[in-house]
């Protein structure tokens, strides 16, 4: 199996993360390494702890034990805002957008640009033309086909809405983009559009951590696949070097993998 000691230092690293909920151990010493410029998919059966792992990395929960390192330096996240401050952006499964608000407003939600001078600093007025222009250029750089930044998000298709969410993350992330089941709510064509988009985000230089239960999507887009089982990392594989059936076998515990260390 690949994924042993690597020469490139990881951008985001987790070591021995533990999270317990009462008697249930969701994370049982989980590790993770996200390398620069890659799409790392995290797969696992229900209860493998993949969503807990991702929540720990995006700041949505605080692990009981273990360490998270960003560019080699230990970090602690006490909330999503903390993780975001460190340059980690997350795209959530359930399309975290405000439907009645425009594309530009959603893109800049919580990070609005204010007008220069007194109008911005004292009267706190928004620089709408600037946000509109920046939103248009972000969406264009990711080739998301939305014409008007003034459109309410609810008038977009599911894929376009997810496109807005991805563009928001890619626009503000400095280190990592985490995507939690970004295609789960989408149809075939729309999923394909979002997968293309994930590649473009990576090609812009941002490593992507992708959580998905959809094997064809994972094998289509991932550079490496992290397989989680029972709260641990059991293997890291490359899509070209393993069959989908074998990956599922490891995931479900039908095949055991020797720990290579």
């Amino acid at each position: 199996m690949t994924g042993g000691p690597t020469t490139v230092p990881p951008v985001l690293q987790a070591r021995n993360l533990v999270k317990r909920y009462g008697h249930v151990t969701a994370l049982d010493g989980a590790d993770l390494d996200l390398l620069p410029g890659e799409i790392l998919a995290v797969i696992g059966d229900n209860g493998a702890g993949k969503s807990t792992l991702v929540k720990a990395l995006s700041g949505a929960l605080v692990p009981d034990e273990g360490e998270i390192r960003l560019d080699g330096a230990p970090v602690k996240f006490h909330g999503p805002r903390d993780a975001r401050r460190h340059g980690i952006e997350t795209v959530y499964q359930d399309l975290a957008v405000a439907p009645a608000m425009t594309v530009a407003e959603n893109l800049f939600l919580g990070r609005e640009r204010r007008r220069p001078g007194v109008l911005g600093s004292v009267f706190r007025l928004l620089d709408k033309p600037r946000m509109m222009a920046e939103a248009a250029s972000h969406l264009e750089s990711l080739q998301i086909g939305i014409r008007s930044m003034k459109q309410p998000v609810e008038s977009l298709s599911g894929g376009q809405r997810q496109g807005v969410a991805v563009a928001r993350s890619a626009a503000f992330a400095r280190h990592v983009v985490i995507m939690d089941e970004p295609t789960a709510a989408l149809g075939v064509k729309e999923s394909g559009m979002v997968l293309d988009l994930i590649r473009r985000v990576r090609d812009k230089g941002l490593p992507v951590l992708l959580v998905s239960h959809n094997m064809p999507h994972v094998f289509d887009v991932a550079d490496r696949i992290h397989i989680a089982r029972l709260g641990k990392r059991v293997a890291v594989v490359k899509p070209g070097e393993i069959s989908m059936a074998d990956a599922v076998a490891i995931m479900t515990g039908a095949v055991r993998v020797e720990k290579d260390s």
Partner: protein
Amino acid sequence: MRAGAGSLARRSAVGEARDHAAILAASGPFLALLLASAFFASQSDRFLSGPNLSLILQQVVVVGVIAIGQTLVVLTAGIDLSCGMVMALGSIVMSKAAVDHGLDASSAIACGILVTIAFGFLNGALITFVRLPPFIVTLGTLNIAFAITQIYSRSQTVSGLPDGMVVLGDTFTVGGTAVTYGTVLMLMLYGVVWVALRETATGRHLYALGNNAEATRLMGISTVRLILAVYTLAGLTYGIAALLAVARTGVGDPQAGQTDNLDSITAVVLGGTSLFGGRGVILGSLVGALIVGVFRNGLTLMGVASVYQILITGILVILAVATDQLSRRKALRS
């Protein structure tokens, strides 16, 4: 993917068409106001006279200002039933502070407004920290504010107010028509809140909160602080409304405001703001308040008994909510 691009472009065009439909829907209340005015003008020569229009504005001022606070609350998908009673308490506190305790006008006004702000804060705190539903919280504070008002005033009207407290009821003339300063204050408040909601980050966050509270929280916006601020600010508008009520009637009236909660909700809904939160324009609430005012005034001029006015207001509200619901359902289907 190339095949997908064409359908995406087509969808955008549909989106833009729906944008125009939204603008049309937003101007609906204004159209209704114009139609109603045209109808009453055709029924009564006096309707469009300067003094009558000024009278409508004066009658609308208290509910109009309360509706500002109510709109902010409704935009967060909340509701405030306590507004009218809190306003009445504020007007009693400021009247008694001046008359019984001999405070000068501005200190007395400050006392009254502080009380209404405190009630707003209490509503917000119970909703955010204790996580009670707004309907229940404000139903409780409605009764509390009403009881305190009656106990404190012994259900007696407070008269003999200092001139400084009723100055907003004074008038100046524009083209031969007397307009109260209170009317001007109301219009200014609407203007300020309109700009704040449209052009500031906090204003947009308020819409986002009403749209998708979870997404707003995930984007690092403190929804607790926002909700607390909204109810507190609503309390401030009820305090200003209290001052306007005192200035209009010249007394502190413990029986005031008893229908103002439903009247303000009526104004908000008629103005096109969705009770589900996140959608609406503050100026719509002014138009909504004016629609109710125009109907009451016009029907009175036509000699229609006041019971029928209430009947018609009820029908208007149901029509407004039905329109909102149907257009929403239609938008979701396409």
